[in-house]
């Protein structure tokens, strides 16, 4: 029940936004997060953005994963 999906913000009108979720458009509430602008990524849950997604932090995790894949440790 706690699933949330990454959504890209396409349009912001006050405390509401239109987002793109895997190609589908949805109107959501921005009541729970401050400072969301067009182009941001948010986590969408039950019609609300519940948190912003930080692309820099995502990139750090992905870099670590690439390191794992490039230098395999065979057990």
């Amino acid at each position, binding site marked *: 029940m706690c*699933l949330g999906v990454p959504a890209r913000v396409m349009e912001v009108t006050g405390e509401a936004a239109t987002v793109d979720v895997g190609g589908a458009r949805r109107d959501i509430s921005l009541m729970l997060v401050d400072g969301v602008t067009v182009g941001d*990524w948010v986590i969408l849950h039950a019609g609300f953005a*519940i948190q912003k997604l930080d692309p820099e932090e995502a990139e750090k995790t992905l870099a670590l994963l690439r390191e794992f894949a490039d230098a395999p440790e065979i057990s």
Partner: protein
Amino acid sequence: MRLRYLDEFRDPATARAIVDRIGNTWDGPPVRLMEVCGTHTMAIARSGIRQLLSGRVTFLSGPGCPVCVTPAAYLDRAIALGKERGVILATFGDMVRVPGTRSSLERERGKGLDVRTVYSPLDAVALAEREKEKEVVFLGVGFETTTPAIAGAIVMAAETGVPNFSVLSSVRTIPGAMEILASDPETGIEGFLCPAHVSAIIGSNAYLPLAEKYAIPCVVAGFEPIDILLGTLMLLRQKTEGAARVENEYARVATREGNRKALGLVSRVFEECDAPWRGIGVLPHTGLRIANRFSSLDAQIKFGLADFGTEEHTPCRCGDILKGKISPPDCPLFGTTCTPAEPAGPCMVSGEGTCSAYFKYGVP
């Protein structure tokens, strides 16, 4: 279509690389890790991670499926409200098939009860605005992930004035329940895989007291297979070091402090209370009730309903399963009188319930 921030965390080659590292990190007896959240339980079953890591890790499924731990009496009250007062019940789809003491929303809907499935609590407010001559009661069930959305709907209904909307609240908080499990020597938990989106709201710092007091490593992890594997590797590395830190694999979404705006809204709308957990009993300070200033939107007060009481007694062992003490196949009802088609207990009925996940994905 490529799904950004999802597909990268589902890559099989990366998964193999992490599984190899897990193999090199730990070769002692299986480490007992609890995934607290039902969404993790489902992802671990669906992706085959449980089997992939068997021998290294035993995943214990925690109490983090809100649908599973909502007391039967709550559903009984909701059904009675619909039948006796003629209200429209608006609910998340997850709740529809959950058995109460005698019936479920689905069964009663078949007999004419007005039950509407909504995707967002805001949809329930909009429904009340459309159906002005009827009372609309939203079944507000969830953990920290969902509570801010319920609080948002309550504030919105209060501000715009929707007199026929109210919420039958049954929301719970996770860290207190984790603490009770951590302090129970029977569970033998050696690490917590902390929920992704609960942590997005409450922040990873919320687990610091737990890690410190009980010397149990805690790692916040996302819900994709790679997130779960990486989170598991981080827990096992702590285990080999003899450490008990809070770490965060899901830093792209969960921060240390969490979502302060959402937390502020929740503390405006709700206040702490003790809460009954189905199959477990009353856990102190793990519930939230609607604060007095919003009492006109509290269905329990509006319709003069009694508290949701404590536990019914059944041979079902969901309680021990929710505490990680036994696995679903250890329950005498599992797969015999209790199946997803005819669930006897809450862990079988919810798609994210531990028993349902074991049954559906044939976990040995």
